[in-house]
């Protein structure tokens, strides 16, 4: 497929066509002839050098258990969960600041144009790292790093309407992303390839992450809302609170 370009990203019609074609070629499965447009997968959003900058930044700044009230193993004892809360922690002086903003901007533009909803705003973003602690064989009882779930629970009273995940991995065995239309329907497996962006509507899309057999899985995740009240809710912070 041709490479994703700014012309495609900025044009809702071209973007949807591009994403549909990519989905059909790479992810559709025969059992689900009727695919819905409430999710997409796009590749090559970051160069390997850019992914490396964000991985290094995550390694240096992520805090174990952040985002889960300090719980370092929220889903399985065999992994360490660490994250960097981009929304509340990053500063202009951060070395990765420009790249974080540019990436966030690009992801937001893609989400707006793909879903053709220009009220979509990011209310939370984080860099997430899941490290395999115990290397294991593929045959094991616990298959999940994060079992299938819906992203509908309000976070800090903000109604999440969309989610996007951008992968920063270099090498990681397992940790595949799983899409399911319902909790029993067939699974589409999406490998967390460096520079790959997954976007979906938070309601009605079950998704999960399979067990990580070895290595570390890095992702830059974004939560969106279309509710104006919620947007304002999060934007009432002032710089003074931050410093």
């Amino acid at each position: 497929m041709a490479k994703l370009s700014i012309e495609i990203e900025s044009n809702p019609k071209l973007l949807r066509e591009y994403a549909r074609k990519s989905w059909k070629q790479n992810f559709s499965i025969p059992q689900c002839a009727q695919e819905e447009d409430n999710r997409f997968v796009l590749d090559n959003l970051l160069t390997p050098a850019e992914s490396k900058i964000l991985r290094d930044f995550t390694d240096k700044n992520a805090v174990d258990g952040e985002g889960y009230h300090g719980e370092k193993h929220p889903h399985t004892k065999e992994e360490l969960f660490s994250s960097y809360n981009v929304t509340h922690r990053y500063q202009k002086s951060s070395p990765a600041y420009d790249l974080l903003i540019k990436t966030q901007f690009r992801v937001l533009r893609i989400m707006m144009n793909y879903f053709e909803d220009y009220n979509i705003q990011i209310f939370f973003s984080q860099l997430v790292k899941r490290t395999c602690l115990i290397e294991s064989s593929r045959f094991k009882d616990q298959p999940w790093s994060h079992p299938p779930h819906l992203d509908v629970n309000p976070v800090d009273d903000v109604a999440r309407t969309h989610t996007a995940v951008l992968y920063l991995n270099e090498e990681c065995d397992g940790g595949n992303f799983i899409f399911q239309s319902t909790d029993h329907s067939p699974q589409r497996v999406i490998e967390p390839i460096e520079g790959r962006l997954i976007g979906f509507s938070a309601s009605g899309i079950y998704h999960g992450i399979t067990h990580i057999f070895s290595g570390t899985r890095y992702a830059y995740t974004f939560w969106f809302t279309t509710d104006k009240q919620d947007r304002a809710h999060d934007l009432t912070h002032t710089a003074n609170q931050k410093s």
Partner: protein
Amino acid sequence: MNILEDWINPYYLRESTKKAIREDVLSKPYTKYTALDNFFIEEKLEELITHHHKLDFSEVLDRTARENGEWLPYDGAVVWAEPNTHFGSDLFFSPLWHDYLSFVTATTLESPGKAEIKLRYHRPYADGFWIHSDGFERKMSAICYFNKDWKIEDGGMIQLWKIESTKDPSAPLIETPMGRLDFLSKYNRIRTSTPGGGFSDKKPHDITLLDQFIPHYNRLFLCNFFNQDSLHSVSPSGPKARLGFVQWLY
């Protein structure tokens, strides 16, 4: 309602208005600029100003932000807006807003998404800002002012300068001025070799005043750095503090 409709006077969102602004900018023979009055929806601007008054402004931050270690005499204080932190950042960092700015100023951005927003406070009796250029990597700027009932005699005007190829013997020679820059309100032609950043030939040139604007409430001044020599200055001010923000895109 999208973010632009939340913030901007509907008149400026009409396709015909946007095209007219773009044509106006492109028709300027030298620096490409324009000023749009009553730009934001007043209720929204008032809210922004309320938040602005709560900020903790720092002169040090402004001075440490100088590019290339160039020293420029200035007396502004600043807070850098960051996404999800400052009121207004939903607009400042929105792809829709960046598309709007680049369209009306006919700017091609090299790094879409890269943005800098300085929320500014200039004390009363500010010294003014010596002639300089914002160009190089930056592709365009948008400056919004918050100052009600601002008069010409209050100073603090943004001034645009044009480099002349001729020399007028009556033009005063001014080099790296210190203190209050009152001469900026006095001359419309001066000679200097030391605008911010300096001329590449390091020689003095005559520059003439091209245009100047009062920092009026709800005025948005736009400039495309297509011409990298877009020299500008700010004249000294009187007893009023001068507030606003400036946004750069790359």
